[in-house]
């Protein structure tokens, strides 16, 4: 699985990256986590509001900062598929 946190290096985006890191390590699953800061790449996902999360090239949400618990269930949903 591949996770991408989209956001141009602002506080909320960094926070989302940290929370995602935490969610992944708490779930104990293998995955790649990347932080995308390039505006052009961000908009290529159709994202207008950052921070946003992309799992396996699929946009999960944008303009939100979910809690670690919510992130965990999002990732788990994807694992089950």
């Amino acid at each position, binding site marked *: 699985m591949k996770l991408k946190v989209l956001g141009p290096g602002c*506080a909320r985006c960094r926070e989302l990256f940290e929370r995602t890191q935490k969610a992944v390590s708490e779930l104990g699953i293998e995955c790649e986590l990347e932080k995308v800061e390039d*505006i052009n790449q961000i908009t290529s996902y159709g994202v207008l509001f950052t921070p946003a999360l992309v799992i396996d090239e699929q946009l999960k949400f944008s*303009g939100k*900062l979910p809690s670690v618990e919510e992130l965990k269930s999002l990732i788990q949903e994807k694992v089950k598929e």
Partner: protein
Amino acid sequence: MSLDWKKESKPLIVIASVFLILYFAPFESSRIRSSVMESLYLAQWYAREHVILCLIPAFFIAGAIAVFINQSAVIKYFGAKANKFLSYGVASVSGSILAVCSCTVLPLFAGIYRMGAGIGPASAFLYAGPAVNVLAVILTARILGVELGIARAIGAIIFSIVIGLLMQIFFNKEEKEKAGSGMAVPGAEEETRPLWQNLIYFASMVGILVFANWGKPDDSASLWNVIYDYKWHLTVIFAIVLDIALILWFGIKWWKIVTLAAIIYITAELSPGLPIIHFAVGALGLSVITASNKGEASEWFSESWGFAKQIMPLLFFGVIVAGLLLGRPSGDGLIPSEWVYSFVGGNSLRANIFASVLGAFMYFATLTEVPILQGLIGNGMGKGPALALLLAGPAVSLPNMLVIRSVIGTKKTVVFVVLVIFMATLSGWIYGMF
């Protein structure tokens, strides 16, 4: 093991510069001593005058906007097929709610340009957004005066439309070739609350903010003075409205609010004549109640806290630097007042151009333009150049020009920056004449 010098160079530079400053700084010089004191006094003035009554309510409002205002509803006006007339209007004012977090401005700009309404509305949004966001308007009005606060908002809105239209006209041909790729408008989320309930909720918070900060007017016989005499009564009335809204529509338990009200009342009895303490107790209580709530209210708190966490350190740093370099309005910092005056004093065209160019290239961290400008005004900067700097400052900076360039290319970026400088100069010059 070899060190990654690219990564280590940043802390190295920081440590080395602090060391060199401490080693060589002539602390015995009276100028430096007084500048350091100026900086501390300025920070204290902010802490006493602005944090509790102004910044804390402003953070709550910003947090509420982030959580309760349906931002995707605004986006439909930026789509490729949206009414152009509406696109410009919405682009110029929507920054007030969409640009509260500086991180949203550039992605939105890129999105509007690439997937939606094109270069015109995108430029309008980029110019106005940082200037009309609620926190910027509140802080400008509070610290630099209501007049400049309003001038900043109005100047930004009007000139953003002018800039947007000009960009559209200049690049009309290219725009037509680009058109086609529609914007994937995110599905509008369901409204959880009718608009009028949101309106009452926001109005009550704005009321608290406005009346708690009501300044004593010079003219003792006016209506403003009557309001001043009753400012705390009015603040309490708005606080009660907010409490009722929270109980009825936000799932806050009534007994918590009543307990808080009782605590505030007891505090008020124990410390009469110190409304700032009662206000602080109220804000603290509201934080505890919303943070411990499950659901929307806790989201509201965590967003507000997020803003506070993000903006307070920047503002603190900005105030310290502004105080050190420029001093308080009454005192002198490291930079001599005569210098400031010779560059941006009065309202000459040259001073306005200088302020605009400086603002366009300099990078201001979120809201730090306000204390810096306060310092410059204290040193003799005219109100025209002050507005020019306020308009050109947050809209562009050298770092974000590079990002903008990667989105719209060199030619359009240069034209945009020139337009920003030109329009900021013009608005400052006109404003300075009055």
